[in-house]
């Protein structure tokens, strides 16, 4: 994997864009920290692979929408395909911000990610010493 230094972040090429099609997921391991990377209908998201609650791997989490805060008795669905939930207890996180839906103080920790010139490029804070991809089981 290549890295490129920018002003206050470092770009890490995770893989070729063709290897992360809509519906596909990757785990990048950057200096020992696992980062889940998802392509959801063409939108790219990257966040820490460990739930801040009990450390379960978020890569197995469901991507969906959720019921928005509402008045008693109302169900209003929203944020379609923007929410990832922990595969164990179901804690919900907004993939755009990394923040949990129940407290802005709790976050799964998200990363900037984009497609640049046919590559999936992740932004991290400092020059990594090691970067790799990790295999995982995923059948859903």
């Amino acid at each position, binding site marked *: 994997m290549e890295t490129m230094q920018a002003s206050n972040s470092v770009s890490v090429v995770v893989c070729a864009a063709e290897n992360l099609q809509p519906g596909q997921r990757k785990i990048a391991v950057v200096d020992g*920290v696992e980062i889940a990377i998802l392509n959801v209908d063409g939108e790219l998201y990257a966040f820490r692979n460990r739930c801040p609650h*009990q450390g379960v791997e978020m890569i197995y989490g469901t991507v969906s929408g959720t019921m928005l805060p509402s008045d008693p008795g109302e169900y209003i669905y929203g944020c379609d395909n923007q929410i990832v939930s922990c595969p164990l207890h179901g804690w919900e996180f907004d993939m755009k911000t990394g923040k949990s839906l129940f407290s802005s103080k709790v976050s799964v920790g998200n990363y900037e990610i984009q497609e640049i010139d046919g590559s999936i490029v992740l932004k991290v804070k400092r020059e990594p010493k090691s970067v790799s991809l990790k295999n995982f089981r995923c059948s*859903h």
Partner: protein
Amino acid sequence: METVLKENEVNQKVEKGLIDCDVHPYLADFNELIPYLEEGIQKHMNIGRFEKSMLSNMNAGAFTFPKARYANPNHVLRLDAITPEGGVPGSDPVFTAQDLLDKHQHTYGILNIGHGTMAGYHNVEIAAGYTSGSNDWLYDRWVLSDPRFKMTMSVTPVAPDLAIEEIKRIGHKPGIVGINLQCINIPLGKRHFWPLYEIAQEYNLPIVLHPDCEGTAEYAPPNAVGPASTYAEWHTSLSLIAQRQIASLVCEGVFEKFPNLKFNFIEYGFSWLPSLMWRLDKNWKALRSEMPWVKKLPSEYIRSNVRLGTQPIEESFHPKDIVQLIQMVKAEDMLLFASDYPHWDGDERDSAFLHFPDDLKQKIFYDNAKNSYRL
């Protein structure tokens, strides 16, 4: 204050042994039971060659397995436990051994069947036939597959005579470590259950109560005051059931009658224990004359005869407060580790007990279960 882990912050220390008191095996398909069920039971349950698929989408007319009525809005089985072949979590003993027992270095994983709701079914003959068949399936497919798997045997609580027959049939088997009884609308302290307790004590098998039938089986009482509207309300109210059952056991004198019988309440949590003990003790001092067979403080009976699974562990505002709560009521010897794998509300040992002292973890992870199951 939330309990939030830092990256890679896990408990690296390995305690001596780990007994997991709640692992759920699932049938991938009900037809797995066919070799274990008599034809009459198969016919009633419309499985195998007696399948009535034409009626499967009707709301009446064919047998339907008693399902839990409350639907988790997310998932009831953890999604990271889907098998490599895409199978139902908990349906493959080999993968479960790798994904749970190997990963967390289990000494034993005690299996409580994932389809327990049939035990409280209204037709007791069918309930008894089903529980026998499912016990045999569980023993053959799971317990014999790995010496670390042990199991509780299911019996129907509605008909103790049939339950006793089943205990006499298989209760001696070495892989069986407890009796899985379901909650019905007869409190556990009642004489209805006493013959069953007598044989359980004789076989040195604890009675295990685990949520399954609550709000589901026809004999199940509604949640204390009436049906809940949401899964969250239902799930949170489960802990009330354990409190109510323990009060019944104490006040009916079950622990005087069967002093060597343990009652393991799994998946009801435990942080409610102080209020139950304190209130029962207070009431006993004033109202002792209506239960003169209760000869010592209720909390003493509870401490000696009742065991509580830690899961789903309550998360106190300050993580260390839950440890103080245990010390407050001297419950160190009462708590049993339970992962509840592969259910959605399970606890990860490394993170859920991060603030527990080592000597307490040793008791919770191993010693207490060793002393309360037939292991």
